[in-house]
């Protein structure tokens, strides 16, 4: 059952000049959240930020009833949200969307860029529970974009690429030497980030002949399946990213990456 709740901001922690962690106190018990699911947050009452904004769950502390989001400031809503103070409330609708498929065994590669790292803490936890090995590959423009590496390293190795070479290997995520390992050690790839990056990663998964799941960030008006604004073209026709996604196996998308 979806919930609509007023939550109190308990903490906002800035990680660099444009990314922060938003921690919310939730009034009721938190349901089980699957990795990849998201919430729609209502930010204030300004006419400029009219619609809610979708954000993946970074983490949940069920015992202390806290939800944590990782948010990148990109426009007016994410700016305004970052300027709120502890004690102020925001209204959220959650949990929304589907989730990543977690295999029973294997060794997976998890690729994140920009705000696209958010769903991967919960995913790391799930994979660890199942005993699935994992490696994180995080990409950014510069070293200061590479965040939360200490959190990810609790679940697996962390590899890094930066476009300016200030941290890790220089280049895009798909330029990383891990993709030249022979034999390729991974059984599955997960990716979240800017669409060109996800497409490039999906192309890699084709070359390596392993499945790939991506989490899409389509524009959403409602987030719960009533407006049909968030669609993506799939082999089964146009599907809503908010209800049938945000996570899709790339073989369902019409990205033509395997051509």
């Amino acid at each position, binding site marked *: 059952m979806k919930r*609509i709740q007023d939550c109190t901001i308990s903490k906002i922690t800035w990680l660099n000049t444009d990314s922060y962690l938003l921690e919310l106190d939730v009034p009721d018990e938190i349901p089980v959240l699957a990795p990849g699911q998201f919430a729609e947050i209502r930010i204030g009452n300004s006419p400029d930020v009219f619609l809610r904004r979708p954000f993946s769950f970074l983490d949940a502390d069920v015992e202390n009833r806290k939800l944590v989001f990782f948010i990148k400031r990109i426009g007016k809503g994410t700016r305004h949200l970052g300027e709120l103070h502890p004690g102020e409330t925001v209204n959220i609708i959650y949990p929304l969307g589907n989730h990543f498929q977690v295999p029973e065994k294997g060794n997976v590669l998890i690729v994140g860029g920009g705000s696209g790292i958010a769903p991967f803490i919960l995913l790391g936890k799930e994979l660890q529970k199942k005993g699935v090995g994992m490696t994180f590959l995080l990409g950014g423009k510069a070293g200061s974009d590479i965040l939360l590496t200490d959190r990810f390293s609790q679940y697996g190795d962390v590899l890094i690429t930066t476009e300016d070479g200030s941290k890790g290997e220089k280049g895009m995520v798909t330029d990383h030497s891990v993709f030249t390992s022979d034999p390729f050690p991974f059984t599955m790839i997960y990716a979240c980030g800017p669409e060109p990056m996800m497409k490039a990663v999906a192309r890699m998964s084709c070359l390596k002949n392993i499945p790939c799941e991506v989490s899409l960030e389509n*524009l959403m008006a409602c987030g719960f399946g009533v407006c049909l604004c968030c669609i993506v073209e799939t082999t089964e026709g146009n599907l809503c990213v908010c209800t049938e996604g945000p996570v899709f196996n790339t073989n369902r998308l019409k990205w033509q990456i395997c051509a």
Partner: protein
Amino acid sequence: MADLRVTIGQMELRNPVTTASGTCGFGEELAEFFDPGRIGGIFVKGLTLKPREGNPYPRMAETASGMLNSVGLQNKGIDYFTEHIYPRIKDFDTHIIANVNGSTIEDYVDLSEKLNRLEKIPAIELNISCPNVREGGMAFGISCPSASAVTRAVREVWDRTLIVKLSPNVTDIRDIALAVEEAGADAFSLINTLLGMAVDAEKRRPVLATITGGLSGPAIKPIALRMVWQVAQVSRLPIIGIGGIMNATDAIEFMLAGASAIQVGTAIFIDPLAPVKIAEGIGEYLVRHGCSKVSEIIGALRVD
């Protein structure tokens, strides 16, 4: 508790609050948030004879106090609706009203005939005002002869309540309303979205894939109110007011201007509970104003 019941054609609604087509799916998603028995009716997503994939992405742009959409009537067609969706929603404790769309008069007629077989659809809303499909929709709603012809043709095959949804993208909405009334409609719903546009200055590109789209939300409320008022002045048919209704006060404004009922649209995206809150708020207003029946406020605007 005041009496909130209102009558639209042959339908009695338990309260004047309904949900607008295209903003409430088929009601099932909203039923996850509240009991549909708490509102007067649900206008389901626009139906067409054949399945439609709708327009390409992006289909949405946020604007000041509103949004543009160019969904373009994506739906799986009437046969899929009849077979798969109708059985799941027909026993909701509220009126399920079908939103009927076509490219030709025959489409509207065929669709209405198919809906005739579904017992629990007490009314249809003829959408002659969709700004997002090239081949029809609004084309019918912006000229009196075509609005009249499509209404008359459907009237011949549809005996239950016939609501015609009017477009605001016209020179004088009163002319269209009168043409539709004369052709046999039982009620009007208005307004559909206003044709609008958004531009991304950095990319120097339109935001929507279709370039233009339909504007909804509080940004259009003053226009919608004016049009409801104008139509109420010239016609005695019941009006269902639509356009930027976010709370009970907005709804009451429409009723004072002449609407017998209202539809909540874009507000649902921001607060899925808005329809129930509005129904409750109308009840409180009536008590506060010493009214025993909601009908006392319909068209009760004082202009002297």
